[in-house]
């Protein structure tokens, strides 16, 4: 039962985090799960070995659109150790996505995209299952499909669902055509961003165990409870009959939100065969059958008057998705609010294609939307002969430019100014293509970052045990974000116990339901629920000690108040356990809540070959209170590097003839490697967002990627004078504009 709740109906004026006598919050605290991770002791999904476990390998559709007419498993079933080739209509065709307990599209006959799962081969060893999967013969009837979004873009229609009101499909105000006609400077450009894969290092994996009618699933999931609920619907079971465990998740980035095909297949196979079943996706299957960030075509039109004030902001996005699926890439998300300007249109349309499911990937919307908007701003600055920072400063809005609402906190201007100083922006190259160091052209770029701060319901149980140790339990996950550590810090600070006295247990659907990891809200939602729980524990400790809670100080396991000093172990009996909760409220409707930042980078472009190397980087962010400076910086670096990959190397290529993903491995889908990444300088500004939550913190995990790629693209332009509008900026696109070799 829930004992204490925080609903964000009004600014939270006083946070107990500011009253901790020996705060860990805000400091650089090493991850408490670190020793387990660096020693190989942390157990991930596939690393469970129930007795008699079987191994399953998914089968794939070898056609992009059509239906499976025959699956001939005779040869496979005759192989030693092969137990079954399972094709069950409950198996899912599409991966699950965020939110809700609805089943993803099911079935193994109709084929909507190349590579979709159409069955599972089960054997008594991985080697035997894999070999048998190579010996299953699949026949199909091919049907015409839509595989090329660009070719089919005239068929684009508005999306059917605004995703809980979070993704605005179409907004407009003023008269954009008139503004375009009257603008003193106009930039009207079309951009393309490719599909991308999350490429978390841990492939999706599930181990399904049925015991006494209850299914336990060890899985690699960002939101175990969403996975559980979707799996329950798929299997026709009450959710209580399923337990999903994800205490360690080897990266997610949006690719492990809903239930995935391997979990359903494992659950069905284990049910049918009466033995536990392990299904681990191959890397190729991760590329083909989980989800992708969809490609976009974006038109951006910006107009300004002669003093550099925006009069027109227009951002129209076409993206692609499977028929019947609601998610779309909301590339205009940040465009609504980043800059002032009277006349505005932000629009999204979707082409229905026969390509793998499009899902959220780290900063859906901003990641590709700011990539283009912030490049267009660079072009506008040049058209106006203005410093790109100055252009942004002149268009800083006082309140939300499209809605009558204030910003809860907004430090974009400070981020730009402090970043410029830190980076040495005044010493940048100001003439595109004119700074050269041997074979290398050198350029500098800047871009703004913004990412909406979301909030959702979350629950946490906090217990002070009889021995004074604290246990925090929630279904929330740590996908590398630092949840274990920041929850321990919050409990330690609010309950006055040393950090190492706190144990955090995550990723178990039998524990209180959280908001999960996604949308940069994991820390603030679970942290706020824990805050509520700890505040309640403080009140109960105070009551037990006969003190007024407002006069109580908790430190080193001792409660002190005027005339009182008691070890908390004396106050908790056999243990004191409360459940805290949090939920969004009026503040989430009345204020725009967004984290901000600014990126600065130097790139070197080989004048002979067009190879691009990022050589220097500074980002400055403001995201409310930083809970753990060490993990927050790591998150920021990770985001920036996602941006580098998106700008320069990452492109999930679909064969326009079949929709098939051509480069379905890590050898040819190029996530950045060590050698691609220089030292990354990150600074967080001191900020408190009283509106956001009791922690006064905003989201960090996705902020780094927002705008990072644009800083690179702008730097590449600055280095070469070549503006590439089709991402990624690979060397072939720069070659035609490079200086003659003899220069």
């Amino acid at each position, binding site marked *: 039962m829930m004992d204490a709740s925080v609903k964000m109906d009004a600014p939270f004026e006083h946070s107990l985090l500011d009253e901790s006598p020996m705060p860990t919050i805000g400091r650089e605290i090493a991850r408490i799960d670190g020793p387990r991770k660096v020693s190989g002791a942390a157990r991930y999904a596939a690393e469970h070995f129930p007795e008699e476990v079987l191994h399953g390998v998914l089968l*794939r559709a*070898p056609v992009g659109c059509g239906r499976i007419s025959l699956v001939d498993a005779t040869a496979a079933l005759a192989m030693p150790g092969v137990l079954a080739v399972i094709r069950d209509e409950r198996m899912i065709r599409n991966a699950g996505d965020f939110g809700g307990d609805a089943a993803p599209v099911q079935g193994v006959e109709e084929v909507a995209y*190349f*590579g979709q799962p159409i069955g599972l081969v089960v054997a008594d060893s991985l*080697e035997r299952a*894999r*070999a048998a999967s*190579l*010996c299953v013969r699949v026949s199909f009837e091919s049907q015409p499909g839509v595989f090329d979004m660009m070719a089919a873009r005239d068929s684009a229609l508005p999306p059917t669902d605004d995703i809980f009101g979070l993704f605005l499909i179409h907004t407009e105000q003023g008269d954009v055509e008139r503004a375009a006609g009257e603008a003193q400077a106009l930039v009207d450009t079309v951009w393309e961003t490719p599909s991308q894969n999350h490429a978390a290092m841990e492939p999706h994996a599930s181990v399904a165990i049925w015991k006494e009618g209850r299914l336990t699933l060890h899985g690699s999931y960002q939101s175990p409870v969403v996975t559980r609920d979707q799996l329950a619907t798929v299997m026709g079971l009450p959710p209580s009959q399923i337990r999903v465990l994800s205490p360690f998740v080897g990266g997610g980035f949006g690719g492990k939100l809903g239930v995935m095909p391997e979990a359903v297949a494992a659950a069905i196979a284990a049910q049918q065969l009466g033995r536990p079943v392990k299904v681990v996706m191959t890397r*190729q299957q991760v590329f083909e059958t989980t989800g992708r960030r969809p490609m976009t075509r974006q038109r951006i039109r910006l107009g300004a008057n002669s003093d550099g004030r925006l009069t027109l902001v227009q951002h129209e996005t076409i993206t692609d998705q499977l028929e019947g699926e609601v998610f779309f890439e909301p590339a205009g998300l940040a465009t609504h609010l980043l800059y002032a300007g009277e006349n505005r249109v932000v629009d999204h349309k979707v082409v229905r294609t026969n390509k793998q499911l499009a899902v959220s990937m780290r900063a859906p919307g901003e990641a590709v939307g700011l990539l283009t908007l912030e490049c267009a701003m660079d072009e506008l600055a040049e058209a106006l002969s203005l410093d790109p920072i100055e252009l942004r400063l002149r268009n800083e809005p006082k309140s939300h430019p499209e809605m009558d609402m204030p910003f809860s906190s907004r430090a974009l201007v400070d981020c730009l100014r402090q970043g410029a100083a830190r980076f040495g922006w005044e010493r940048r190259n100001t003439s595109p293509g004119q700074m050269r160091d041997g*074979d290398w052209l050198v350029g500098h770029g800047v871009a703004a970052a913004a990412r909406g701060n979301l909030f959702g319901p979350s629950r946490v149980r906090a217990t002070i045990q009889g021995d004074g140790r604290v246990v925090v339990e929630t279904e929330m996950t740590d996908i590398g974000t630092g949840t274990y550590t920041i929850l321990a810090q919050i409990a330690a600070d609010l309950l006055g116990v040393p950090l190492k006295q706190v144990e955090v247990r995550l990723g178990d659907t039998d524990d209180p339901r959280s908001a999960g990891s996604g949308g940069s809200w994991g820390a603030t939602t679970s942290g706020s629920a824990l805050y509520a729980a700890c505040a309640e524990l403080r009140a109960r400790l105070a009551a037990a000690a006969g003190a007024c809670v407002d006069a109580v100080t908790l430190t080193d396991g001792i409660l002190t108040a005027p005339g009182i000093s008691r070890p908390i172990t004396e106050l908790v009996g056999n243990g004191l356990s409360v459940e805290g909760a949090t939920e969004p409220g009026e503040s989430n409707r009345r204020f725009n809540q967004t984290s901000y930042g600014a990126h600065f980078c130097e790139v070197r472009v080989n004048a*002979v*070959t*067009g*190879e691009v*190397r990022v050589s220097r980087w500074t980002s400055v962010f403001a995201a409310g209170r930083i809970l753990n400076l060490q993990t927050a910086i790591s998150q920021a670096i990770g985001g920036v590097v996602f941006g580098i990959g998106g700008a320069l*190397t990452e492109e999930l*290529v679909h*064969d*326009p*003839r079949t929709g*098939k993903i*051509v*480069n*379905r*491995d890590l*050898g*040819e889908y*190029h996530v*950045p*490697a*060590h*050698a*691609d990444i220089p030292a990354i300088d990150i600074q967080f500004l001191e900020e408190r967002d009283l509106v956001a939550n009791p922690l006064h913190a905003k989201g960090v995990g996705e902020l780094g990627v927002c705008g990072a790629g644009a800083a690179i693209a702008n730097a590449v332009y600055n280095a070469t004078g070549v503006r590439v509008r089709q991402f990624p900026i*690979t*060397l*072939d696109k720069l*070659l*035609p504009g*490079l200086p003659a*070799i*003899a*220069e």
Partner: protein
Amino acid sequence: MIAFDYIRPADETAALQAATERPGARFIAGGTNLLDLMKLGIERPRHLVDIGALDLREVTETPGGGLRIGALVTNAALAAHPLVRQRYPVLSQAILAGASGQLRNKATTAGNLLQRTRCYFFYDPASPCNKREPGAGCSAIGGFNRIMAILGTSAHCIASHPSDMAVAMRVLDARVETRLPDGQTGSHTLEALYRLPGETPHVDHRLAPGELITAVVLPPPPARQQSYRKVRDRASYAFALVSVAAVVSVEEERITEAALAFGGVGPMPWRNREAEALLVGQAPSAALFERCADVVLAEANGHGGNDFKVPLLRRTLVSCLTKLTGAEP
């Protein structure tokens, strides 16, 4: 991975005998390419002869002043060998430009030469591919073909050879020494070892069934300027889009000798003797290098997505020659 029989013979004779005993047997050395392909069902050998225990790990000087490299010398050991670094720096550089530290520790000299293409469609059993399944068709022609070849292709296959090391071996006029199942020895230049795709792209090389590469022999080192320049999408750990191995001598302001080989552009490490001959006797100049590139690229054909390799190879070649000869750019 389809099930296979496995044996690990102790010496060459036993290995050759094992391969004869079970027809269709394949030798496996480092395994970094073969196992990769076997997991995907692209290679399906029924018998594997593991040659890892054979005594083929020595690098020795030949009487003629060259180097004999045992077939099982790892890429890492070869790149780090003092004589290679000193006398054949282009080889050391090429190896170090390829793969990763881990792969170079496992991959062998002979295995590297025999690695198969990285063509996306070859690597996917669900895509038609003449190299994998003769007569099935080529998905790269008319498809996404950014990494494919521009020289030496056919209407049946446009796959490129992925090796960096082999490009340097080719520029150095390396030969492979082999032993045949009957105990006879063989010797092939790389030019003779590799095949162009023609109408039979599924056959990569001219080794006979059961023929085992025992060594790679380098002629005496060219006492010249050597360099290997690789252009790729990542700064490291990516296959070449194009690469240039160049060995050039300049005496009294004239080019006296020149050898050039190219990676990422052909079905085999590519060489063009005519282009090399054009350089000899001439004073280094940008115009000369452009003419050299004209000859190299005379027959080059892009396939849409890889058209850029034509100007990229030209620019990389001209730049490399300019640097090696000390010519004014």
